[in-house]
């Protein structure tokens, strides 16, 4: 039934836009839209067909075909499968109209595609680099871009096997350990030229730069990059009128390591431990999203028991994440470390489980294609059971009693940092941020993956869209996760945990796949393009921590500078994922 509707819808869409064509490459899906029709197409899709949520914008470099492609993944906030559309442009001069007028949430993603791929987005309000610095040479995700000490396009590298020889990176560096400044360079005198571009983003008034007398009350304040409450090396440039925020721009990339380029050099298997390092609080759900995408390409599924173990680990991770998110939020509010350490206490017990199962507390590297790395070792199931049935609910209630009615917490969070439902959707906000604004959108329910369609749970939703609701919704979600875990404990079957023999060199047929999970921080997507080789051709992470920042400006505007830190805390970002 649903499929029929889908086909019909597509024809309707095609009738409406005779210029578009179906993407009929093998292993691909969706539509190819001519660039000049893109903006119209996206807005009609949003307004008439209900695809109001632009999940991800991804650039792909098809070097052999001499073409650049931008892939858009659109979904309906009412649920259901997605609709993918693409534009193809010439590789030498890739220009694509910007979708920011239709979906402001495309802002940071388009900047990322410009930064790393060199695709120019016309009419983008603020098109400049986002993860790298202004002045960086080239666009590193282009297939013909090579880094210093380049070894090869794909691992395994020849230098290691056969005939291994140890060469340290610092030994291949011509400057070795030399950290002298070049002659004539005085760091004290140096002002980075790119700062102008950063300040332009918040609309710095030119005359404010040179004039000694203040001609208006507005000043620019840099919060970060080394700020104790920015949750990592993250910077916010804020323009203030008195104490009130007029404009804010997030500046990031200090932890950038081009995870995606590394991922395209890696074999499919090698990427699993690398995904651990994205959002290092939630390595289990990062693994989950990535293996889902690759499993889609491979056309395999894990056995029953593995499915249950996956859900078990993913939900435990969610509890860990939400506990720490609440703890850090309270830190940001000035309740220094007592709530955080109470949250960490429970986290420790859950990490004990991760350690026993996967071998590591945080870098779990536990999911495998069509399975998980190993079965639960002896005693672990009991551990999970005791924790879930006899401890966690009580501890969550404790936290609830501890904080929810606290007058100071309420005064500092209620009605602050409000994001309306419309704004949240338009800015592609996901996860607790979206749901606290009154949009009950949860990938586990809207577009179930794994075996989530079997569990009974409520999609938590709150309606004020302020910090307080973003705090409450995390408590709600912990309770729902405990509910899911109870069902997992009851239903988990015996059996194998891996389909087929584990292989270190998996065969992945050519094609594209988008795997997404409801990570604790929101929708975490992995877009993988395979060309049949051992390394992915394109590997893109739709990072919730990154894209949720598109809405930071809206959330902070017209509130006080003192609230900015707690608003940031309520989004719950991890810089490992934001900067990738």
């Amino acid at each position: 039934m649903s499929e029929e509707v889908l086909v019909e819808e597509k024809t309707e869409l095609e009738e409406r836009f005779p210029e578009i064509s179906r993407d009929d490459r093998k292993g691909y899906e969706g539509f190819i839209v001519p660039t000049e029709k893109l903006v119209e197409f996206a807005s009609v899709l949003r307004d008439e067909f209900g695809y109001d949520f632009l999940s991800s914008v991804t650039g792909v470099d098809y070097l052999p075909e001499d073409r650049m492609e931008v892939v858009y993944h659109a979904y309906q906030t009412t649920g259901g499968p997605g609709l993918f559309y693409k534009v193809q442009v010439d590789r030498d001069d890739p220009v694509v109209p910007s979708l920011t007028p239709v979906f402001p949430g495309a802002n940071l993603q388009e900047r990322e595609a410009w930064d790393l791929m060199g695709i120019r987005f016309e009419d983008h309000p603020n098109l400049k680099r986002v993860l790298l610095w202004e002045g960086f040479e080239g666009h590193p995700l282009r297939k013909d871009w090579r880094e210093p000490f380049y070894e090869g396009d794909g691992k395994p590298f020849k230098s290691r096997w056969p005939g291994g020889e140890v060469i340290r990176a610092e030994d291949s560096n011509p400057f070795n350990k030399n950290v002298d400044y070049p002659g004539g360079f005085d760091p004290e005198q140096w002002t980075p030229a790119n700062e102008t571009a950063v300040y332009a983003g918040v609309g710095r008034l030119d005359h404010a730069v040179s004039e000694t007398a203040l001609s208006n009350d507005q000043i620019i304040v840099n919060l970060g990059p080394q700020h104790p409450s920015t949750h990592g090396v993250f910077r916010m440039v804020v323009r203030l009128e008195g104490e009130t925020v007029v404009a804010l721009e997030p500046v990031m990339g200090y932890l950038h390591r081009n995870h995606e380029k590394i991922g395209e050099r890696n074999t499919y298997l090698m990427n699993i431990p690398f995904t651990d390092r994205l959002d290092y609080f939630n390595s289990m759900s990062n693994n989950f999203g990535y293996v889902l995408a690759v499993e889609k390409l491979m056309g395999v599924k894990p056995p029953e028991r593995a499915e249950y173990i996956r859900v078990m680990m993913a939900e435990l991770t969610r509890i860990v994440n939400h506990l720490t998110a609440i703890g850090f939020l309270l830190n940001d509010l000035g309740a220094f470390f007592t709530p955080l350490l109470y949250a960490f206490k429970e986290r420790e017990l859950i990490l004990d489980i991760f350690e026993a199962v996967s071998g590591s507390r945080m870098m779990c590297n536990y999911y495998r294609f069509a399975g998980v790395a190993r079965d639960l070792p002896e005693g672990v199931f009991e551990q999970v059971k005791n924790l879930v049935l006899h401890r966690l609910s009580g501890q969550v209630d404790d936290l609830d009693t501890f904080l929810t009615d606290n007058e100071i917490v309420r005064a500092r969070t209620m009605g602050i940092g409000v994001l309306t439902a419309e704004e949240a959707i338009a800015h592609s906000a996901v996860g607790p941020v979206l749901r606290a604004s009154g949009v009950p959108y949860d990938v586990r329910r809207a577009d179930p993956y794994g075996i989530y369609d079997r569990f009974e749970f409520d999609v938590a939703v709150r309606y004020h869209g302020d910090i307080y609701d973003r705090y409450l919704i995390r408590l709600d979600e912990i309770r729902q996760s405990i509910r899911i875990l109870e069902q997992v404990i009851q239903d988990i079957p015996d059996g194998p945990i891996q389909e087929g023999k584990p292989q270190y060199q998996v065969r992945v047929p050519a094609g594209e796949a988008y795997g997404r999970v409801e990570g604790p921080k929101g929708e975490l997507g992995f877009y993988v393009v395979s060309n049949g080789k051992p390394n992915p051709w394109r590997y893109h992470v739709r990072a919730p921590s990154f894209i949720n920042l598109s809405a930071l400006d809206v959330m902070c505007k017209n509130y006080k500078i003192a609230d900015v830190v707690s608003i940031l805390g309520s989004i719950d970002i991890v810089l490992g994922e934001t900067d990738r």
Partner: protein
Amino acid sequence: MADMYGKGLLKGLGVTIKHFMDTYLEDIRWLSRGKHRYYTAEGIDSRKSFDTSGIFTVQYPEERLPVPEEFRFIPFLIYEVNEDGETQDRCTSCGICAKVCPPQCIWIERTSDPDTGRPVPEPEEFYIDIDICMNCGLCAEFCPFDAIKMDHDYEISVYNRLEKNIFNKERLSRPVSYYASIRPTNYAREEAARAEAEAAKAAKKAAREKRSKSGK
């Protein structure tokens, strides 16, 4: 009255006091039973369990949390020791670990026979740059000969990483008995599988011999 200002604050402070008291109550309970909650294995175990209450910090380095069997840190190489005390590396220098290692931190030099120049299935040298190793455990997972496994020793800081942190074969090698001691379940499972495989091979060989005999 229900909305008395400060009630929520007081309620919260109640939770803090409860946490504070719980720790001492727990300590007193242990004392009254004549047991020690700190610096004993039993005490650490109880502080790790789900029904622990109060603060359960472990005072490292005076106390250490026992690591679970699957815990992984840096890989090590296993060698067998026979009755005469001779050692034999399990590693055949097949190179799979070097190929599967995500940060590519394993380098292997193969041995070749000095007379014939043909490769011998044994590594001449085996290096792991443990500064780069990301402790992922994939090498141990995919080694077909169970020759490389993940160690439990996590206290390996040195003052000079440039000299000390490229581990060679000598530094990496551990006897199989060490492996059996840190990972007993895994060891037993692998040994059982090996015995089974050998028995199957022997049975096959016996059957073949029998067949060829009866054929004659």
